[in-house]
């Protein structure tokens, strides 16, 4: 029988909540959310978003805490073992492999983007953006120059200002070291310790930025105001409520922002005692994430961009993607305001903190799996993950300009999240049984979960998720699979490479699961 004391545990409730909230609060809150809101009609987006939060986000959050704590009781910190407990069938553990590969694949590109935020915070402080504009200025607009800066820095286009991808590789290396140092220090001494001061710092930085943005003077030549930005997002607009794509985008954002359907919450919750509250903890992490997103996140990028560039230009910028809004336009803005280098540093370092608390959470399921199911030491598990991550991040670094990163993000960071969320929802509510689920969810609960969530978890959430998958399948699946909208052979090759990578990782982790069960290293606590 495994040594019970070998499992780590959380030290404090706030530490636990900050760690899980830190997992949820990431680049999605400050970069992806404003872009999704702007792309999907602003006021039209918020109503489906709030409905999706109530019908998908909160139920899935509670479900994942439940699965995690239940699995932890039997010594399972990852979803292969947890799913095998929920469903006594040989296939269950292989469905759980998704809870290992999704966070790992997302980690391989997320950590790269995270390294940009760290690099940009350094560039802000050192005034590198201004230097770049002086060297490359001319007839190009500042937005265009900063776009070139990002493409040059990330190696997506040749730029003599940078040393190929050398500078990006250095910042990536530093980011990887920071991530793995936290993972190496362990659950309580690393992740919890870091979250306890990173998350409050992140909130303080965000509040400072909101105050600064709302006290800026009117920009000469622009008729935009921060209220116009807020109005675009909050003024109710019912015209696009019938558009299924707006609903898909809102549900996708809920998955991304809460980090549900990923496998990370399960692992964190597995380190709870079996009668420790999950109802209040789950709600607290969900609400903390929403505070970061729809109270703070909504007041930064869009309002300040509207103030500087006007509403229509901001919508165009946002439609160019999260990087266009968060990196390109914000660099231009901070180059123009008083103490811009300082506020630029705060913005990008806020993103870095948001990113790192999420990326360590993505690494933890693999470390836990190697430790518990293969009986590797903590040091060996962290080292193995580091080697694997470095190996898998190299193609991201080299082939981003061909859409390799976007392809990984679409499949692992979007589609598989919804698929995994649907699977776990059905397993818990219908295979394990809703009555047992409800009893487990309420065991040790510090708050009473409203009874209506029994009905929502059993019927509404799974049907909502199945409908999302079905609509996506009939609307877009075939075109995406056969690259109907892509004729660049390099991009098609990179996309095929990304898909093969996902398949190979799935097969490799399935083999490890098979070996663990077969060789007996997989053990359950009785």
């Amino acid at each position, binding site marked *: 029988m495994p040594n*019970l*004391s*070998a*499992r*780590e*545990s*959380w*030290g*404090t*409730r*706030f530490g*636990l*909540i900050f760690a899980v909230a830190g997992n949820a609060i990431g680049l999605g809150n400050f970069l992806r959310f404003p872009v999704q809101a702007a792309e999907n009609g602003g*006021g039209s987006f*918020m109503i489906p978003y*709030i409905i999706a939060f109530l019908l998908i986000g909160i139920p899935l959050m509670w479900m994942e805490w439940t699965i995690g*704590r239940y699995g*932890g*009781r*039997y*010594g399972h910190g990852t979803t292969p073992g947890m799913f095998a407990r929920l469903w006594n069938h040989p296939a269950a553990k292989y469905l759980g492999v998704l809870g290992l590969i999704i966070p790992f694949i997302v980690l391989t590109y997320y950590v790269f983007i995270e390294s940009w935020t760290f690099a940009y915070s350094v560039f802000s402080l050192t005034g590198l953006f201004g230097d770049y504009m002086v060297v490359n200025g001319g007839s190009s607009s500042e937005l265009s120059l900063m776009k070139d800066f990002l493409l040059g820095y990330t190696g997506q286009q040749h730029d003599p200002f940078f040393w190929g991808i050398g500078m990006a590789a250095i910042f990536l290396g530093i980011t990887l070291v920071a991530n793995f140092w936290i993972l190496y220090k362990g659950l309580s001494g690393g992740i919890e310790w870091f979250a306890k001061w990173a998350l409050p710092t992140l909130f303080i930085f965000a509040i400072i930025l909101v105050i600064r943005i*709302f*006290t*800026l*003077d*009117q920009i000469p030549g622009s008729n935009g*105001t*921060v*209220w*116009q930005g*807020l*109005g675009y997002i*909050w*003024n*109710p607009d019912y015209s696009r409520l019938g558009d299924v794509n707006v609903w898909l985008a809102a549900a996708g954002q809920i998955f991304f922002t809460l980090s549900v359907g990923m496998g990370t919450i399960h692992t964190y919750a*597995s*380190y*709870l*005692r*079996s*009668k*420790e*509250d999950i109802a*209040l*903890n789950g*709600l*607290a992490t969900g*609400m*903390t994430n*929403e*505070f970061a997103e*729809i*109270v703070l996140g909504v007041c930064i990028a869009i309002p300040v961009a509207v*103030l500087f560039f006007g509403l229509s230009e901001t919508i165009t910028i946002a439609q160019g993607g999260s990087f266009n809004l968060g990196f390109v336009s914000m660099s231009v803005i901070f180059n123009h305001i008083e103490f811009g280098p300082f506020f630029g540093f705060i913005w990008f370092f806020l993103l870095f903190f948001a990113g790192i608390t999420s990326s360590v959470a993505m690494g933890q399921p693999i470390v836990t799996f190697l430790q518990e199911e293969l009986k590797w030491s903590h040091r060996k598990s962290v080292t193995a993950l580091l080697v694997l991550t470095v190996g898998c991040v190299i193609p991201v670094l080299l082939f981003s300009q061909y859409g390799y990163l976007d392809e990984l993000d679409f499949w692992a960071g979007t589609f598989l999240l919804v698929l995994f969320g649907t699977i776990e929802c059905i397993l818990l509510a219908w295979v394990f049984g809703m009555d047992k689920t409800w009893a487990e969810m309420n065991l040790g609960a*510090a*708050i009473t979960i409203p009874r209506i969530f029994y009905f929502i978890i059993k019927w509404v959430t799974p049907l909502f998720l199945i409908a999302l998958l079905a609509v996506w399948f009939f609307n877009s699946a075939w075109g995406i699979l056969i690259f109907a909208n892509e004729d660049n052979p390099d991009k098609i090759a990179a996309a095929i490479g990304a898909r093969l990578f996902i398949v190979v990782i799935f097969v490799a982790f399935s083999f490890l699961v098979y070996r663990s069960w077969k060789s007996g290293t997989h053990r359950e*606590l009785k």
Partner: protein
Amino acid sequence: MITLFQNTSDLTTAGLIFMLVVWSLTIGFTIYCFIRILKIGNKLPADTPGQDE
């Protein structure tokens, strides 16, 4: 003049109410959760998962 006091009508009354209701609920629930946690006690027992079976 700072932007905070300019063209506040760009956010309509309905938009302002929608925003304030959502913000109040979000901030209210967040504060409620943390107060409840403080009442329960911040410290978690030192024993490890599974031991209290």
